């Protein structure tokens, strides 16, 4: 669902979220030697019944953002408002009450379930903690199992008796036990085989329609996010660099990083895949403990490397690009210079939404 003017209020508002991890030096005193800037000034909204994809590669801060959002880790600065309540300052008692509405599904189905508890207990635990188990707890657990596509007989078994996909379903059932409104999904299908992923993704889509959930879907896999998200926010080194609807992001990405990211994802279609032009970035993601000044992407940016004047480069190094909306919010000083012919083989299958591009940019950048 794409937010139009006059849309309902966002169910979750994140403003200027910051999370720094201290880096401890060696030696007896282990004084702080520096900080890892995992999340730097991140802001976004989550609307009711929508799926917001939060994408990025390792070290971009998306997982940390998800954790801080739910107060599983304390924020260094910033605000998170859930339906008007400010979460970052809540006492743990008050937060516990709100946990019923904000739940999370984890990435690793093999580590997310206590191996010593039978499935019935795993799903019942949230109910027990909040005093909701009696009188209908057993029936509730059975209903939850059915909801995620398992059968009540599965309840007596232990996690190690299930496949990865089934364990993930159990994790989803546990998250739904308290009837949350917002579900944060942290790479929920990344550890699953492709043929199993599809089943879980279908389930998530069904559940959203049935229960009116909002999803924050954190993933590094853009193909999956393309499939499930309404809107997408792209993160790089702790900052959000682009926010757009899924269709817009994939047909006309504006930020050079997003363009490179999309260009790098292989397509399971030999002819299209080999016809694509690639944007190859040089180097690896910079160290989050020592990020580049100004625009953090400039050390790998093809625009910076080959298409900007010295004065423009100076601006990239000095000024952090804010999220400005041309067609959609993008954090790049020179977004009008970048284009995306690398997606020329990637036209949307149903034929609408032709890519908007300006000048063509030669593919293989090295530099």
């Amino acid at each position, binding site marked *: 669902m794409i937010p139009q003017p006059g849309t309902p209020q966002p169910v979750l508002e994140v403003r200027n979220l910051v999370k720094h991890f201290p880096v401890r030096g060696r030696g007896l005193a282990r004084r702080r030697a520096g900080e890892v800037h995992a999340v730097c000034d991140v802001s976004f909204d989550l609307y009711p019944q929508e799926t917001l994809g939060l994408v990025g590669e390792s070290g971009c801060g998306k997982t940390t953002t998800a954790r801080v959002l739910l107060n*599983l880790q304390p924020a260094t600065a910033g605000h998170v408002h859930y339906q008007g309540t400010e979460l970052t300052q809540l006492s743990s008692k008050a937060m516990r009450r709100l946990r019923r509405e904000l739940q999370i599904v984890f990435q690793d189905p093999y580590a997310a379930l206590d191996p010593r508890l039978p499935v019935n207990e795993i799903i019942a635990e949230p109910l027990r903690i909040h005093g909701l188990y009696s009188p209908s707890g057993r029936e509730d657990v059975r209903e939850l199992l059915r909801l995620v596509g398992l059968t009540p007989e599965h309840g007596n078994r232990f996690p190690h008796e299930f496949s990865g996909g089934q364990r993930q379903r159990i994790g989803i059932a546990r*998250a739904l036990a308290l009837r949350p409104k917002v579900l944060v999904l942290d790479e929920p299908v990344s550890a699953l085989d492709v043929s199993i992923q599809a089943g879980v993704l279908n389930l998530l889509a069904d559940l959203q329609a049935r229960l009116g959930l909002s999803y924050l879907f954190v993933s590094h896999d853009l193909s999956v996010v393309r499939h499930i998200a309404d809107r997408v926010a792209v993160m790089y080194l702790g900052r959000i660099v682009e926010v757009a609807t899924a269709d817009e992001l994939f047909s006309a990405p504006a930020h050079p990083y997003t363009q490179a990211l999309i260009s790098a994802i292989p397509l399971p279609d030999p002819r299209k895949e080999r016809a694509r032009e690639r944007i190859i970035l040089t180097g690896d993601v910079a160290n989050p403990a020592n990020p580049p000044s100004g625009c953090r992407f400039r050390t790998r940016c093809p625009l910076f490397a080959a298409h900007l004047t010295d004065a423009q480069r100076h601006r990239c190094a000095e000024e952090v690009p804010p999220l400005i909306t041309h067609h959609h919010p993008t954090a790049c000083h020179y977004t009008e210079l970048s284009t995306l012919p690398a997606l020329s083989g990637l036209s949307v299958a149903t034929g609408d939404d032709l890519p908007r591009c300006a000048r063509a940019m030669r593919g293989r950048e090295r530099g």
Partner: protein
Amino acid sequence: MPDQEFRVAQCSQTQLVARRFRRHRLAMVSLVVLLALVLLAFVGGWLWKYSVADLTPDESVPPSWDHPFGTDAAGHDTFAQVLRGTQISIGIAVLGAVVATVVGTVWGATAGYYGGRLDTAMMRIADLVLTLPFLAVAAVLGHNLGGSWWLIAAVIAGLYWAYVARVARGVVLSLREKEFVEAARAIGAGDARIIFRHLVPNAFSSIIVNATVLVAIAILLETALSYLGFGVRPPDTSLGLLVSDAQTAVDTRPWLFFFPGLFIIVIALTINFIGDGLRDAMDPQQTRMRR
């Protein structure tokens, strides 16, 4: 066409462990021997015709049908004494090990979970206890507090809990960052629930293995204490006390020395082998290939 999902494990974790344990022949034999011994000591001692205090007219008699383990200078039946001694020794060892395990687990798990300064403080205390010379301290405490058997057990527990605390803390540290712990927090579980409902049960296997070793150590420690005179005192008896009393008679009346000594060795050995078997059975990494 029914869907079929093929699981690797058709049974619960406990059944898997039990199955693997059964394959460890030495451990199985040891288990049988130990159980037989325990049965003999408790049931047999109760049923035996002579009791510990009985003074028979046969004095210093070598093993015979009437007195399978012989008698001592005063006419006590050694068999009855050894059985009683075994009861006491095992009782002390098990009680000591159980108390040490419970205290140590709670201590170590709490320290490991909270980390930081609390962890440091708690583990420094445990380390301090570990540096004490066990025998000397136990001897002093045993001497001052009197010789009832449960007091000896308490002394043993009071010294050995630190070992268990170390093990428990190690396991909890490794489990603390696992996602199911984070999941518990996400659904609103408090610290106590996480520690006792999630972390400690998952540490069971390491703790149990450690506990069996503790029993063996406790037997030997009790033996040493009683031998030195700082442990169990008359009218109670223990295997160590029996050995101590018989040391002058090694050459002349070896049966007084031999049988209690044999029982001590067998008990300690069997417990050790059982501990080995348990450790192998619980080790999930190990896949022993059959050749």
